[in-house]
């Protein structure tokens, strides 16, 4: 391991220092350094959007705080859920009289901490509702869909939910469209190399060189199969097959595609991969309304890529096109 850090036990503290000096539009909660929020939140009666998750996935999660996206985020240790207190504090900060939509990913730790945070919130009279992203088709079969992990599709949930809140949707409305974004999204990842948590000092899983792990999770959770690394075209086809077998996207008006690198894959390769995805979607009669190609949701320095496809109706199309501004995603006009 060879990394740019000071103290492996203080990675998150030091990262936050950098993020906060680099981005004056973000603030740390006064009494909880693990809560970061949009410094320019207007007290305007809109629904507050909160998320949270482990660190090491940057720009997720804190990179999606900003206008048209998330209002406040709870920040966890590397690959580890934020505390219940941090989720709770994020709720309090994001609350502007219209309730809180907590939009997060389906992991044991996050589920438990959000559950506890909601108990705290209830005792303070805060109205909090959740949408739990479970877009990773590789993480459980269709009959166990509620067990599936949330991966890069969470970004769609934030984008759609954030746009709805910005447009003045009420809490029911925000939850409805964020849930729709999750329901109409499917993702799958492939890993080509493991990653190393600096405090641990060595990878805690292995992918043999020349092999790829299909369906790997964002923390190295086991995938479906480990096979010899294939061409980008074959990889794209195999991954898209899983996604399209799991949900019929021909019922939608069009689709949004998100291709995210896992950290160490060159951007050049993400575009090589995207060219194949686009071709395959067209072959199957699906129209791409919009696409995102880049490092949107990473796993430290893992090599690999995730593919997410979101089916659109008129409402989601209009929301996905709204402007937003944040470290991870800026959309104009």
């Amino acid at each position: 391991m060879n990394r740019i850090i000071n103290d492996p036990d203080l990675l998150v503290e030091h990262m936050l220092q950098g993020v906060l000096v680099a981005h004056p539009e973000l603030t740390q909660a006064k009494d909880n350094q693990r809560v970061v929020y949009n410094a320019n939140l207007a007290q305007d009666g809109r629904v507050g959007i909160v998320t949270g998750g482990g660190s090491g996935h940057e720009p997720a999660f804190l990179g999606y705080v900003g206008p048209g996206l998330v209002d406040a985020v709870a920040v966890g240790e590397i690959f580890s859920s934020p505390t219940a207190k941090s989720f709770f504090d994020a709720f309090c900060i994001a609350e502007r009289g219209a309730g809180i939509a907590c939009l997060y990913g389906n992991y044991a730790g996050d589920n438990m901490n959000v559950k506890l945070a909601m108990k705290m919130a209830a005792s303070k009279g805060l109205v909090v509702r959740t949408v739990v992203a479970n877009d990773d088709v590789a993480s459980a079969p269709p009959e166990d869909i509620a067990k599936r992990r949330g991966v890069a599709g969470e970004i769609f949930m934030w984008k759609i939910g954030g746009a709805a809140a910005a447009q003045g949707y009420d809490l029911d409305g925000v939850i409805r469209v964020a849930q729709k974004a999750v329901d109409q999204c499917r993702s799958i990842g492939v890993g080509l190399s493991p990653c190393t948590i600096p405090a641990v000092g060595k990878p805690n899983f292995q992918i043999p060189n020349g092999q790829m792990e299909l369906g790997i999770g964002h923390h190295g959770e086991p995938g479906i199969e480990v096979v010899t690394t294939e061409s980008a075209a074959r990889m794209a086809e195999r991954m898209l097959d899983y996604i399209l077998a799991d949900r019929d996207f021909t019922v939608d008006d069009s689709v949004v595609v998100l291709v995210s690198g896992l950290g160490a894959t060159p951007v050049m390769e993400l575009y090589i991969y995207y060219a194949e995805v686009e071709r395959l979607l067209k072959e199957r009669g699906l129209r791409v309304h919009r696409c995102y190609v880049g490092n949107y949701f990473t796993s430290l320095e893992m090599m690999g890529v995730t593919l997410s496809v979101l089916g659109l109706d008129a409402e989601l199309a209009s929301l996905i096109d709204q402007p937003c501004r944040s470290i991870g995603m800026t959309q104009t006009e």
Partner: protein
Amino acid sequence: MNQSFSGTDGASIISDLVEVIVANREYLSEVDGAIGDGDHGINMAKGFARCGKNLEGRELSLAEALDELTLSLMEGIGGSMGPLYGSLFIGMADQVRGCQEIDAEIFARMLRGGLTSLQDISDAGVGDKCLMDALIPAVEAFEQAHSRDTEFTEALREMKLAAARGRDSTRDLVARIGRASRLGERSLGVLDAGAVSCCLILTRLADSAEARLHS
């Protein structure tokens, strides 16, 4: 003959738990490193040390001290350990609120209360290769000993034995929960980190209680 210990000496009992976890920081991480991500000691010590600081120089009932520990875990760790151990200790605290004296009856209710509270948020059970493999047999062993009218001291000893046996049983289990489940059969042959920390906690709790027993 009916042994008990004072319910007003909470800070020092919980300080003992802090001590044992902080002292085993490296060991717990090492155990976790074999089939997990090697941070269990770091995570646990972080939360427990935080509690240790909060307890310094304070006189607290057992319930209050358990509340402090819960808060420290829930505010300090996050991940899964914060809510899991947090739920365990809050569930315990709820059973000893207002108790001046803790006898075996109350101690049994405290243990069961902790386990029930934990089961509110975890579906895991014996055989999953997790902290439940130490906790559940230990709670049951104490309850059974107590229901047989065994002395408090003896029931504590049986609880410790069951916790240690439970911990050791994880060596021959395939992980069905958490990170180690990635490894399938390869998770065989080593202890589960959570079971080790849970056994440390229960053992020290028993020793702390025993040292304070009077008739």
